């Protein structure tokens, strides 16, 4: 394993006596920051998006998903994997998850919900976060957006999973695009569990 270690000077730190180490670990293909207590913050991140619009509900969104691949996109570390709308994390850790909804409505007064559902037993999902775009016009086409996020402690990649749900969207379109992010999902590993 090849490692490049850079030890930072202690200026600006709350604990000036403890140097911090930034280590590039070729085997992990990720940047690891090690604190004085040995806690590691391996940075991993990726963005997925819906590439095709649809109308109506989805539990979960399970088709037409892709990793962003345009406009200079880049990711860090190992990729998330997805099967039938269930996302699996590449490693344990504390993960930040964001769901962004792009939507439109034609002549329907209603709300349009997107939610992040998580499980820690690979079976029972709960709504960790949700948000609504509200439409209040009975005619014409209007566009909306909403976003929600949560943090999930992934202690076991086989059991801690996430999916995304669209609800109450019978007359609304959930917008997908393969050229830019309209409805999309962000996954960032913040640190060790």
């Amino acid at each position, binding site marked *: 394993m090849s490692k490049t270690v850079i030890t930072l000077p202690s200026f600006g730190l709350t604990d000036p006596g403890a140097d911090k180490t930034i280590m590039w670990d070729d085997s992990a293909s990720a940047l690891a920051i090690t604190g004085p207590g040995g806690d590691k913050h391996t940075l991993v991140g990726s963005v997925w998006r819906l*590439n*095709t*619009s*649809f*109308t*109506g*509900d*989805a539990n979960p*969104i*399970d*088709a*037409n998903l*892709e990793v962003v691949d345009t406009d200079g996109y880049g990711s860090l570390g190992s990729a998330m994997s997805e099967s039938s709308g269930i996302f699996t994390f590449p490693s344990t850790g504390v993960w930040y998850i964001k769901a962004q909804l792009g939507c*439109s409505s034609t002549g329907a007064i209603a709300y349009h919900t997107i939610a992040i559902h998580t499980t820690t037993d690979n079976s029972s999902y709960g709504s960790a976060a949700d948000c609504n775009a509200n439409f209040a016009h009975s*005619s*014409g*086409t209007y*566009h909306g957006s909403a976003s929600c996020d949560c943090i999930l402690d992934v202690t076991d990649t086989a059991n801690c999973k996430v999916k995304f749900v669209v609800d109450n969207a*019978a007359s609304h*379109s959930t917008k997908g695009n*393969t050229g830019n992010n309209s409805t999309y999902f962000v996954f960032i590993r913040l640190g060790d569990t």
Partner: protein
Amino acid sequence: MRPTHIEDYLITVRLGQWFGWSDSKNKVYANLIVHDGGSKPSESDCTNGLKALQDAWDLENDSYKSKRRTEYPSIADQLDDIYHNGIDGWKATIKTTKDKYAKG
């Protein structure tokens, strides 16, 4: 936003994620795939469906109806017009806009 792609029509055909593209970077009819086992609209269904959506959008957003709608006085002002000038006075006010944007 004016409908410009057959995807705008396809999302009106059935609810849910029933369709997708074999190449999402090339969304042409030949690459249209069906996820739910249901029927696949014909290419003419798609082009005709898109045309119908565009016609409806144009009528709503770029026609005498939409131009009149943006120029009519507010309901409050129209009620005030009726109060002060009577129905005939109000009709004269409205006729100005109707004549300006005739049915076409």
